[in-house]
């Protein structure tokens, strides 16, 4: 009951938010929040640190961007194509990556992502260093014009809620229970007869497809797809969002994405722009040393202790 009330009031807030805050900023937060939630499905609930997750964000973005630019398809089909492409790439990369564990897994995902990065750098359809610019938002189902920011916001919100719901469902399903069992004690999960690698693989595919969904949506919002989204710095950023918000919590990545995007937006305008990476690095170190459960995790601990 209590949890439902929280969900409902947050939903209400998200509906009225664009009346108070700039909708493009909110859309940016929602896209990164979805990306971080997808990433957290792996890190927080399976214990897999994918250090190359930006490649799925960028793949979704590039596929959707180039389809919207070059064919007359509607935005929902463009997004679907981007999501599928990221899912397929995730299936291939995941199959390779789950062969290794722990820190090796992180290195393999990072190196695989770098492989695709160089591909996108050289491939003709991505526009190389320039990226894809002026991507049209198009008309949803051929009817609703998305060029208006308010209309676009509610479309993005719907996508985010779908992704969030899917992750929520996954975590609270029997499949999700097995994932958590793998995180807690992998040898035990193996001895119970689960094919651990297959479970990790499916989780990887879901996570990469949802990261692609976030990237596709982001491309429509900003009408732009560029190398920034596939660079490994972006993979680092999503780790930071999740860590800062609280890994393994449902809302942590959303809060983390909100905080990081806000900091970046606030700093990039002023003289402090160059300090962003120093500040991000410092947040990393503070989180790891003193603040490991993140904002939401610490908050939950506090509530448990005091109420």
């Amino acid at each position, binding site marked *: 009951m209590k949890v439902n009330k929280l969900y409902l009031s947050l939903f209400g807030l998200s509906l009225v938010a664009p009346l108070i805050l700039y909708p493009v900023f909110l859309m940016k937060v929602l896209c990164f929040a979805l990306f971080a939630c997808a990433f957290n499905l792996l890190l927080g609930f399976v214990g897999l640190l994918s250090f190359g997750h930006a490649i799925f964000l960028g793949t979704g973005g590039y596929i959707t961007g180039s389809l919207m630019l070059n064919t007359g398809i509607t935005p929902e089909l463009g997004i679907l194509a981007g999501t599928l492409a990221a899912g397929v790439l995730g299936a291939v990369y995941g199959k*390779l990556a789950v062969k290794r564990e722990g820190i090796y897994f992180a290195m393999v995902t990072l190196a695989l992502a*770098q*492989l695709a990065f*160089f591909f996108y750098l050289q491939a003709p359809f991505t526009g190389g260093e320039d990226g894809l610019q002026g991507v049209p938002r198009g008309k949803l189902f051929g009817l609703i014009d998305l060029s208006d920011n308010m209309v676009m916001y509610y479309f993005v919100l719907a996508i985010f809620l779908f992704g969030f719901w899917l992750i929520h469902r996954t975590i609270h399903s029997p499949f999700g229970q097995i994932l958590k069992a793998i995180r807690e004690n992998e040898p035990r999960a193996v001895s119970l007869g689960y094919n651990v690698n297959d479970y990790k693989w499916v989780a990887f595919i879901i996570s990469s497809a949802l990261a692609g969904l976030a990237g596709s949506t982001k491309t429509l919002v900003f009408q732009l797809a560029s190398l920034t989204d596939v660079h490994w710095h972006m993979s680092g950023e999503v780790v930071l969002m999740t860590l800062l918000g609280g890994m393994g919590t449902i809302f942590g990545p959303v809060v983390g994405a909100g905080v990081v995007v806000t900091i970046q937006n606030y700093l990039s305008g002023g003289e402090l722009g160059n*300090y962003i990476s120093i500040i991000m690095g410092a947040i990393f170190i503070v989180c790891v040393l003193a603040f490991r459960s993140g904002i939401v995790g610490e908050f939950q601990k506090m509530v448990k202790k005091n109420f």
Partner: protein
Amino acid sequence: MATLFGINLFALSGQLLVGLINGSFYALLSLGLAIIFGLLKIINFAQGAMYMLGAFLAWMALQYFGINYWVALVLVPLAVGGFAILIERFLVRPIAKEDHLYSLLLTFGLALILQGLFTQLYGSSGLAYQIPAELKGGTKLPFMYLPNYRAWIIIASLVVCATTWWVIEKTKLGAYLRAGTENPQLMQGFGINVPLITTLTFGFGVALAGFAGVLAAPVYSVSPEMGSNILIVVFAIVVIGGMGSIGGAILTGLMMGVVEGLTKFFYPEASSTVIFLVMVIVLLLKPAGLFGKEA
């Protein structure tokens, strides 16, 4: 011009040389990673930043204090190693017992700070460092022209790598080190100061990156990004070689440099991706890596 089966030997050996030089840097960096990983089970994500720091310190030493290359070659690795010892003592040790992913994230944060700091101080365009006077010029070989400094890089890194391998695998000190990783409590019981050994090893592993940085300063431009670019390649090399052996890290590093050089000659478009492709193939055939032991 020397040709064989229509292949320009002059150009081929040139690319092979570039490959060997890159391979020397890969070997030094992956050796450092392997040592740190072996003893502390930490992937030092800041290894690339430490390499960059080494190059910058050499540049700064010359620019501000007139300290020449040869002195820098000794002092800079010591400074970088000393810095690493502070990091181990105050940042890494408190979380050493936690999940190893945390130390990876911690060192990643550190790398971001270092890179951001140097971008802030010197911009991202890159600075030049002169080749020391003693190593200017080159030797004319029948099939190629060999610049002296490039020959020096290969020799210096081979000597350092081989010495490190010898110390760890063949001496008593190395035996303590290896035993300390196998069973720290037992070594503690024998009266060996394991935390001290751990700290010094971390410092040494990072000092190798600093040494590579000084070696690199005259051939590449000294820039804040030089570390992050090479680090991901080195990670791929570590996966290819498998972290099991010190010798494996050195050999794989050199080998991948050569593979990269050959690709640059025969199919330049793939030269930046070939190492990652090799990694994929090795993962498919031998997930533990070429020299790694199956866990």
